[in-house]
C-alpha cells in the first residue's frame, strides 16, 4: 500500500470536489476572505479548546498504536539477537554492522537498484516521450485508452505475478513467440535463469508502472498553455527544443511525484518476488522487503530482519525527501 506523497506536504484544494468548493465559494466569497480571529476558539463551531483533540484522538490512537509504536519497536528489535521466542541478547549495532558484509543483503540492495531502473527510469523516459507526442491530442476515445492503460495499477500484484509466471514459463507465450519468429536460441525459463530472472521481475514492474507514469505526465502536459508553444514556433523552435525548453520544465512536479511513487514501489517489491522467484535462483532476485520476511520467518533472525526493515525505512525517507528537494531546487 504505497501512498507516498511526501512531496505534496501541504495539500491545497483536492481535485475531489473542486466543483462543490467553487460553488460554495461563489456564495460566500466576501465572508471567507477574512478569517475572524476569536481568541481561544478553534473554529466557528468549536467552542472548547478540547474539541479538536476529541476529533483527532481516535484516529491518532489507532495510528500511533499500529504504525508509530511498532516502528519504534522495530528499531528496538534491531539492537537485539532474538530467534522469535525465548530470551534475547542485546548486541548494540552488531546487526547493522553484519549487514555490511552480508552477501544476501548486499545482493538485495543491488537488485533493488536494478529494479529502480525498471520501475522508475524506463517508465519515466518512455512516458515522457509518449506523453509529449500524445499531448497534441485530438484523439477520440481517450477515455477508453486511459482506462486500459491504467488497468495494471488496480490488479492485485499476486494476480499480476500469476499472469506473468505463465507468460515467462518455458512453454509460455513468450517462448512460443520467440520460436514462431525463429529465435529458438533465446527461449528459456525466464524466471529460473540466473541471467534473466531479475530483469524479468523488473519488466513486470515496468508493465505495472508505465501507464501510471504516462498518464501523470500527460495530465501535467495538458495544463501547459497553448500560447507557449505558438510563441516557440514563431521563434523557430523544433519539436526537440520545444520538448526541452517548454515541456520538461513544466512537468517537473509530475516527474518528481512519478519518481517518488515508482522508486518506492521498486524498493517495496515483495508480492512479485514472493510469488515468482522467492528471491532465487541463488540471491539473484532477492530484495530488501523479501529479506525482511525471509530473515524473520525462515532464518528466525528477528533482530537482523528488523535491521533490514529500518534500513529500508530510512532509504524510503531519504529518497522521498531527496527527490522532492531536487525537484524543488530545479524549479
Amino acid at each position, binding site marked *: 500500500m504505497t*501512498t507516498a506523497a511526501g512531496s505534496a506536504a501541504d495539500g491545497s484544494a483536492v481535485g475531489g470536489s473542486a466543483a462543490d468548493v467553487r460553488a460554495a465559494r461563489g456564495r460566500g466569497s466576501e465572508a*471567507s476572505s477574512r478569517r475572524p480571529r476569536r481568541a481561544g476558539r478553534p473554529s466557528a463551531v468549536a467552542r472548547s479548546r478540547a474539541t479538536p*483533540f476529541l476529533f483527532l484522538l481516535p484516529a491518532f490512537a489507532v495510528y500511533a498504536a*499500529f504504525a508509530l509504536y511498532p516502528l519504534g519497536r522495530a528499531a528496538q528489535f534491531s539492537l537485539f539477537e532474538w530467534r522469535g521466542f525465548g530470551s534475547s541478547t542485546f548486541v548494540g549495532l552488531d546487526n547493522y554492522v553484519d549487514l555490511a558484509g552480508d552477501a544476501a543483503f548486499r545482493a538485495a540492495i543491488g537488485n533493488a537498484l536494478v529494479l529502480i531502473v525498471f520501475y522508475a527510469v524506463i517508465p519515466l523516459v518512455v512516458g515522457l516521450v509518449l506523453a509529449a507526442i500524445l499531448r497534441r491530442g485530438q484523439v477520440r476515445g481517450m477515455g477508453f485508452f486511459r482506462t486500459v492503460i*491504467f488497468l495494471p495499477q488496480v490488479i*492485485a500484484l499476486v494476480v499480476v505475478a500469476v499472469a506473468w509466471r505463465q507468460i515467462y514459463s518455458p512453454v509460455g507465450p513468450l517462448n512460443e513467440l520467440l520460436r514462431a519468429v525463429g529465435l529458438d536460441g533465446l527461449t528459456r525459463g525466464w524466471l529460473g535463469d540466473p541471467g534473466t530472472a531479475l530483469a524479468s521481475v523488473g519488466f513486470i514492474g515496468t508493465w505495472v508502472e508505465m501507464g501510471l507514469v504516462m498518464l501523470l505526465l500527460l495530465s501535467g502536459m495538458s495544463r501547459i498553455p497553448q500560447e507557449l508553444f505558438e510563441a516557440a514556433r514563431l521563434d523557430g523552435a523544433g519539436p526537440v527544443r520545444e520538448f526541452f525548453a517548454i515541456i520538461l520544465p513544466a512537468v517537473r512536479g509530475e516527474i518528481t511525484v512519478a519518481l517518488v511513487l515508482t522508486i518506492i514501489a521498486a524498493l517495496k517489491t515483495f508480492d512479485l518476488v*514472493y510469488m515468482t522467484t522467492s528471491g532465487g535462483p541463488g540471491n539473484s532476485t532477492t530484495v530488501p522487503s523479501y529479506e525482511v520476511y525471509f530473515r524473520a520467518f525462515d532464518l528466525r533472525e528477528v533482530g537482523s530482519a528488523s535491521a533490514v526493515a529500518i534500513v*529500508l525505512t530510512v532509504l524510503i525517507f531519504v529518497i*522521498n525527501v531527496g527527490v522532492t528537494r531536487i525537484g524543488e531546487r530545479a524549479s
Partner: protein
Amino acid sequence: MRVSRGEVVMNYVLLGAFALFALAPVLTILVTSVSAPLGEPAGIYPGNFVDAWTVGGFGRSLGNSVVVAAIVVGLATVLSIGSGYALGTMRFRGSTVLFYLFLLGMMIPAEATIIPLFFDLRTLGLTDTYAAIALPQVAQSIAFGTFWLRAQFRAMPVSLLEAAALDGAGPLRALRSVLVPASLPAITTMLVLVFMWTWNEFLIALIMTPSGSLRTAPLGLATFQGQYTAETALLAAAAVIIALPTVILFLFLQRHFIRGMLEGVAK
C-alpha cells in the same frame, strides 16, 4: 492549433500499441482461464471457475477479504474524517506537529511495522484474528485519509462553518450536515482507494495469519499456486476471480481511481 492527419494517425498507433501492451497479460490470463485443464482435450472450459472456486476454497477466502475490507474501509474513513476535520478546520496547539506525524505514516513501509506487530500480537494471543489483519491497514489508511481529507476540509470556505454556527450547530452537527455532504466526492475517492489497497494487500495478511485459518483472497491464490503449479487453467481462473472485484469497481468508478492516484498525490 492544427494537427496534421499523419500526427493524428501516429497518436492512434502509439496509444493502440500501448493499450495492447497493458492488455496482453490480462488477455493471456483470461484466455488461459477458460482453456483445457490438465488431461482434458482442447476446448473452452467455463467450468474452470467453478472448479477453481471449490478446489481453492475461495468462498471462504473471499469472505475473509470482504470482512477485512469492511473493517479497514469503515474504520479508516470514520476516523480520518474526524482527524481531517480537526486538522483542516480548527486552530490548536500542536496541529502542525501532529499533521507531520500523520504524513510520516504515508512513508513508513509495512515491512518495518509488521514484524514487531506480529510478535507483540502473538504474545497477546491476537494473531490469526480479523483485527490483526485489519488494524495495521487501518493505521496506514488513516495516515493517507487524514492527509487527503484535511486538504479537502481546508479547501472549504470558512463561511460554511460560520453559517452553521449561526444556525446553532455544534462541531459534530456542522461536520455531519455541512462538511461531509459537501465532501462526498473526495470521501468516495478515499473509499475506493482504501478498498483497493486492502483487497490487494498481501504481506500483512501473510504474516498476521500464520495458521492460514483467516486467509484472505490474495493469500488463497498464493496457496493455490503452491499446490497446483501445473494446473495453469485453474490457476488462471482463480486469479481472475481474485482480480474481478477491484477491476469491476475500477470500471465503474475509474474517475475516482485515476483522480486519486494522479491528482491526489500531485498537488
